[in-house]
């Protein structure tokens, strides 16, 4: 079993992300001993967990050959609503449920727009992205809302047993659930089938509408969860939370080895890529590269990942001819 798993990991499309993540950790630790401090590692784990959760949802969306550009704004709105409700004295449990419900609801709206109106997901979610941002601004009036709920913060950053932040546990749970859905349920197969060949999926009697809506609800849920965690971590929320997070989410999916051409998805790779990107960001900070360069580096990584994906698809195509 262990042998099979490790074999699969090495043979899988995620191998590049795993190796790169390991390499980055080693390299930064050698360059600067501060990289391996507890504080820094915790920061990496929390950041990676947050981007991994949205990325996991996005993996299914991309496997379905769709895109969700609204995840960043969903993160922001979930965090803002949570902050607002906490300010009104609503109990923490209800606040979390409300935040997640908002994510699911927005995912449902995305799914309905795509299936009922037949809009391309790219366009539909670009529109909702803009609208959600508008709602955020109306709620915050452009101001920052502070969260004064220590419990909320602890739910994310507390180290279990002194070393493992709760965020990582949450991310692991999300990974397990999404993995089960993707690999062990008909729904998951249908997501991949739609991404692989939609016409064939229709012919096989798959309910395209239900699967599409379900996938967007799932990614909405994941994004809202990431948003809540971001809010809890930062304690101060405004409408910039989740800005550009859709690009991060797409990047971790692609860097993780999921092809933008759909039909397959690599959840483990997504998690590794989230770790890789978080490590690079923290590492650059530790070695005193200004965070102004982050976006530049990030874009470069994305291009490399897309190149690798392109090469892989090329060789696969040639491989098809050879067999």
């Amino acid at each position: 079993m262990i042998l099979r798993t490790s074999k699969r990991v090495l043979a899988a499309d995620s191998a590049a992300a795993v190796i790169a993540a390991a390499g980055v950790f080693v390299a930064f630790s050698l360059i600067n001993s501060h990289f391996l401090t507890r504080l820094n590692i915790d920061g990496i784990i929390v950041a990676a967990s947050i981007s991994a959760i949205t990325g996991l949802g996005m993996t299914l969306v991309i496997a379905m050959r769709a895109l969700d550009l609204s995840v960043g704004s969903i993160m922001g709105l979930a965090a803002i609503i949570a902050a607002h409700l906490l300010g009104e004295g609503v109990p923490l449990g209800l606040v979390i449920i409300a935040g997640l419900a908002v994510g699911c609801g927005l995912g449902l709206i995305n799914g309905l727009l795509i299936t009922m109106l037949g809009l391309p997901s790219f366009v539909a979610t670009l529109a909702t992205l803009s609208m959600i941002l508008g709602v955020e601004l109306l709620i915050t009036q452009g101001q920052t809302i502070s969260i004064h709920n220590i419990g909320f913060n602890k739910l994310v950053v507390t180290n279990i047993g002194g070393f493992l932040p709760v965020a990582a546990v949450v991310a692991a749970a999300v990974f397990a659930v999404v993995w089960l859905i993707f690999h062990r349920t008909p729904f998951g197969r249908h997501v991949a089938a739609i991404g692989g060949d939609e016409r064939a999926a229709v012919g096989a009697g798959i309910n395209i509408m239900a699967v599409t809506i379900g996938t967007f609800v799932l990614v909405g849920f994941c994004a809202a969860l990431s948003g809540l965690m971001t809010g809890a971590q930062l304690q101060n929320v405004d409408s910039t939370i989740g800005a550009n997070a859709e690009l991060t989410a797409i990047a971790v999916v692609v860097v993780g080895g999921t092809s933008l051409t759909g039909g397959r998805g690599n959840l483990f790779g997504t998690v590794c890529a989230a770790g890789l990107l978080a490590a690079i960001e923290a590492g650059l900070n530790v070695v005193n590269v200004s965070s102004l360069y982050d976006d530049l580096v990030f874009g470069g990584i994305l291009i490399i990942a897309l190149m690798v994906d392109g090469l892989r698809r090329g060789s696969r195509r040639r491989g098809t001819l050879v067999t």
Partner: protein
Amino acid sequence: MAPTEEDPLVADLGVKGEEAPGAAVPALRASRLCKSFDGVEVLHGVDVELRSGEVHALVGENGAGKSTLINLLSGRLRPDAGHVELNGQPVEFRNPLAARRAGISVIAQELEVVPTLTVVENVFLGSEPTKFGIVRWRDARRRAVNTLSELGLDADPDRAVGAMGVADQQLVEIAKAVVGQFGVLIMDEPTSALNLEEVERLFRVVRRLKADGVAVLYVSHRLWEVFDLADRVTVVRDGNLIFTKSIAETNIGAAIRAMLGSKSSLVTDVAQVGREIEREVAAARQGAHRNESSVPERSEMGRAAPGRAPRSGDGQGPVSDTPEGNKRPPAVELEGVHSGSLLSDINLTVHDGEVVGLAGVLGSGRTELCETMCGLRKVDTGTIRLRGVRARLREPKEALAHGVFALSEDRKSEGIFGHLDVRENVVLNFDAARGERMPADAASNPVRAWAGKAAVLIRKTGLTWVRARAERRAFDSARASLGIRCSRPDERITALSGGNQQKALFARAALTRPAVLVLSEPTRGVDVGAKEEIYTAIDGFAGEGIAIIVSSAEISELMRLAARIYVIRNGRIVAQVAREEASEEQILRYMAG
């Protein structure tokens, strides 16, 4: 449903058993079905009735309405008028899912497998066996392997379907339809990519399903298959029902006549053709299955249209088949070509105006050989010479630049652009400026060479104006000369019948003014009438001096078209026979080894 351990296959091929009692009630009955597209009615009130435990053949030319009828029965389209009854109950399928749930399983004409998913995932797509919502992959894998081995496919169930050959994909497609529960099976051209042995296995499965009480609707262009397998046959023409008869009451000649209608004057000796095919079927039934694919369409086609084809059945081409005394080097020459483990030591020559055939079973290397010539496959050692000059064809565009135009055997995914209209498809490679090639002396004059290269580069980037009028003219003349039947030039190409799509691709080829044409399965999925038109077009191309290579699974087609036939087996050319000296049987024997 738990398949029994003794014979899981029977359970896999299981049937909803309830429809038997009232034998009078047909499993599926469609009455007066009508369907229009864009205001044009293509189906004018067709009735068809499938009984449990029968194989019902549906035949007709391309464009006769077969596919529309099937799409109506399987929920892909909804009828404008008329109704469908399933086991006596009126039903209205809103989508394929509803039809499938009601027990109608469909093998689509075009492969409907998801390339990125594995074999087992494809076989159970949409009908995954689950327990508490979790797919039981182990169970699924076992059942998929059983069903596939019954069909003769010994494949790794965890292999991605996209990495398999077309024939194997087709078997996966069939397996997909026959697992699970159903009372009606609709098979639309299930054998187009299969070899004889695979067809035989498929027939065994169909007969088993029939014995189990499934109603099978079987669509095929191969009439011998129909008359071998079916109990009753329904003929449609131009959206009308011509007749439904039991096989005993009719014969192939009558079926062809009914399919062609007034056009049957094309086939002057229909009765003769019918008799020959029937003799063939009789021979096939007696177990001489090796010769089956040699449906004597050669004689049918050869004599069918005197005066239409420049080359009628006497075997003498319009252009000299003998290259002697021809000082021009051959248009194509392959010498000692190797490619991977699939092609070894291929030597082949094609002269201007010559049609050369490639025969070989699936997997023999026939497809791969065509790929080397059109730049899709790497040549490891050996040389390809075009008109005596060594050419390196690393990409199709290089082949095209050398005047080699190839038509893929997979028209839908590698030929047409389904989202474009007919004219756009035809003029795709049309370059109004072609012919303004670099002058021969340009090479010696650096300035002119640079200017010429720059001009070519600009043209290649497509940074020139679309010459709309030239394109229209080119399209109109190609449409007229090839007889492409479409209502308007801006009709979507997918709305055309297979034969007309193929003619559009021929028109595309013609507009590139090729020196060499590589045609793979030029008449796959094309009906009898259009087939002859395509043969005529190929003859016409040869008459213009184009060197043509035809690769086909139908030996009769090669005998009809080609002066010489190369037989390829296990990646080697094992024989080269002249048409006059060869019999189909002999070629089959070379193919089988």
